[in-house]
């Protein structure tokens, strides 16, 4: 047999099954090198067949050639490489701090003060708003529960302790991650894209000392101050609920607050916020310097700076809370 033709005299109506069947037949014929003559088929069917043959055959996606073991290995190598980058960056910062203390680096005080301005005073409005609202929310949630026991006066203790120990530092940290950390990543990323950082280096200036240190120091200096400010405004926010909803007097509310909070607890929050400042600055500068060479990469760097900073804040918070508890027990 060398040739297959069709007799379509009896064919009245057809649907998509016919071309499918014909295609299978065609493949079958081709594998046996038998010619297929579509000449007698209805015109529409011929057209459909031609169309089907003209489109490129979609190969099923090749199962990836890498075995699970290979993938694990690749993942491990990538993780190690990322860890190494992080360690290198940290090491460079420490070395530059050493060079700075010996006066051997190009640290511009003017830059430093402008970063202090941006990370401090200019952040006050947003920190105020968020802190007051967090105080209000804490007080409100607490009040609803405490009212059931007739103990609404302890709202002052709850808000005061929560703000001082956790929320003041945490909220200002998250705000600064989104505000300043992101802008650091964007600034350094843009400089990376414009090759300005390369230009700096060829002029003999280390980008770490010149760009990273002033930014990080500004944040480390400003975060504790912002934290104290946030603590205060949070407590004021709580007092609004106490005064207007729970009918406590202002002096009553603040005397309860004062009795509830100890200086050590304030310090705990302030230490935490200093660490957050370090982490936010680190994440922002690290992601900014890591930025690729396209404008899209700047956006990615900014996003990943915020995510990294917030993850670092939460992890370090858990660690530090644990450590402070150990210290208290000891």
């Amino acid at each position, binding site marked *: 047999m060398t040739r297959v033709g069709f007799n379509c005299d009896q064919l009245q109506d057809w649907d998509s099954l016919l071309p499918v069947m014909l295609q299978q037949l065609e493949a079958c014929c081709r594998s046996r090198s038998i010619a297929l003559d579509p000449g007698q088929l209805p015109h529409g069917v011929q057209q459909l067949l031609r169309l089907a043959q003209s489109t490129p055959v979609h190969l099923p996606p090749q199962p990836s050639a890498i075995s699970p073991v290979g993938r694990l290995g690749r993942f491990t190598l990538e993780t190690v490489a990322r860890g190494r980058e992080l360690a290198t960056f940290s090491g460079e910062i420490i070395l530059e701090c050493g060079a700075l203390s010996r006066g051997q680096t190009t640290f511009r005080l003017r830059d430093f003060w402008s970063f202090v301005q941006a990370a401090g005073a200019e952040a006050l409005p947003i920190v105020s708003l968020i802190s007051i609202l967090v105080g209000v929310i804490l007080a409100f949630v607490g009040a609803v529960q405490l009212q059931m026991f007739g103990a609404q006066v302890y709202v002052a203790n709850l808000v005061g302790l929560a703000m001082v120990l956790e929320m003041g530092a945490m909220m200002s940290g998250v705000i600064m991650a989104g505000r300043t950390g992101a802008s650091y990543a964007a600034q350094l990323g843009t400089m990376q894209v414009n090759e*300005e950082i*390369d230009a700096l*280096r*060829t*002029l003999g*200036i280390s980008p770490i000392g010149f760009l990273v240190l002033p930014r990080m120091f500004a944040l480390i200096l400003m975060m504790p101050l912002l934290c104290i400010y946030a603590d205060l405004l949070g407590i004021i926010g709580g007092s609004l609920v106490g005064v207007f909803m729970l009918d406590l007097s202002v002096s009553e509310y603040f005397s309860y607050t004062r009795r509830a909070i100890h200086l050590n607890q304030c310090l705990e929050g302030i230490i935490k916020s200093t660490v957050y400042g370090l982490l936010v600055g680190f994440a922002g500068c690290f992601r900014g310097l890591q930025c690729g060479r396209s404008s899209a990469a700047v956006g990615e760097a900014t996003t990943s700076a915020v995510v990294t900073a917030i993850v670092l804040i939460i992890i370090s918070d858990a660690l530090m809370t644990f450590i402070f508890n150990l210290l208290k027990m000891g």
Partner: protein
Amino acid sequence: MSDQKSLLQLEGVCKSFGPNLVAAEVSFSLEKGEIGCLLGPSGCGKTTLLRVVAGFESIDQGRVIIDGTTVSTATSHLAPEKRTIGMVFQDYALFPHLSVADNVAFGIRNRPGRQRRRKVAELLELVGLAGQSGRYPHEISGGQQQRVALARALAPEPELLLLDEPFSNLDALLRERLTVEVRDILKSLQTTALLVTHNQHEAFSVADSIGVMFAGAIQQWDRAHDIYHRPASLAVATFVGDGTLISGTVEGPGTVRCGLGVLRGDLSLPCSSGSGVDLLLRPEDVLHVEDAEIQARVVHKSFRGPTILYQLELTSGEQCQALVSSHHNHGIGQWIGIVAEVDNLVIFPQEPA
């Protein structure tokens, strides 16, 4: 041992990104005061090689030596800020918040004020921007930004100046002028420089020696004249300048017979008589003479202002190009007389069919 005279030396440098080899056993050297150029199509690895010299990229094999100091090997790497280099970037990378004078002064911030100001004034004078020192990068034109970038890179008096496609963002006229100016400035300061470009005209007008790169390897490292007139390989011959290959037969020392008659000149390769060769014909080697013996038909023409580049078909069916003054305007399909005048016969042995 490295040659004491050479300021920059690369020895068998290999570099790959993952599976892609971007530099394969690259070796060359630049003498003090020499201007070198890496010329090649985009993606051939020339910019990566420049970044290797600058210290932005590490290398997998080989050595990079600047002024007698080994700065890169497979295991050691000196940071770019510790190498005494200057670099001019493709997009200039000026600091946008600093004025022109501050940009130039940036690399010499540690010098005493008066000395620094004098150096900045001197350099701005040199690049022809003496009156612009107070302006900001966004207020000046691309060509001026380019000069500021050059002045900034030259301010710390680097041993070696690297230029990454420095003229690619400029219009043709300005490019022409700046290439000459840059060469004059570099020569007057006796600065050693390495330039990267995909534009052969830039390479020819700036550089003393040129390396033509393809796929991560330097195919030929030579003087501009020799790159053009004595290309080492077919790839170099066709990348640098226009030209066509026509087949011919060597008839004796310095004599080749081809579709354009018998040509006499210096053979680029010693070839025995009777062997078949491919001969490179540059468009400017083919002259238009009205009553010439050899006639060719115009297949295609492109008007270039003062000249017209004609694509011609010989009676043998082979094609060649001729650069003719645009006073001789011929239509497509017309037969015109041509004479070949070739001094350097660039030939490549024909593959036996």
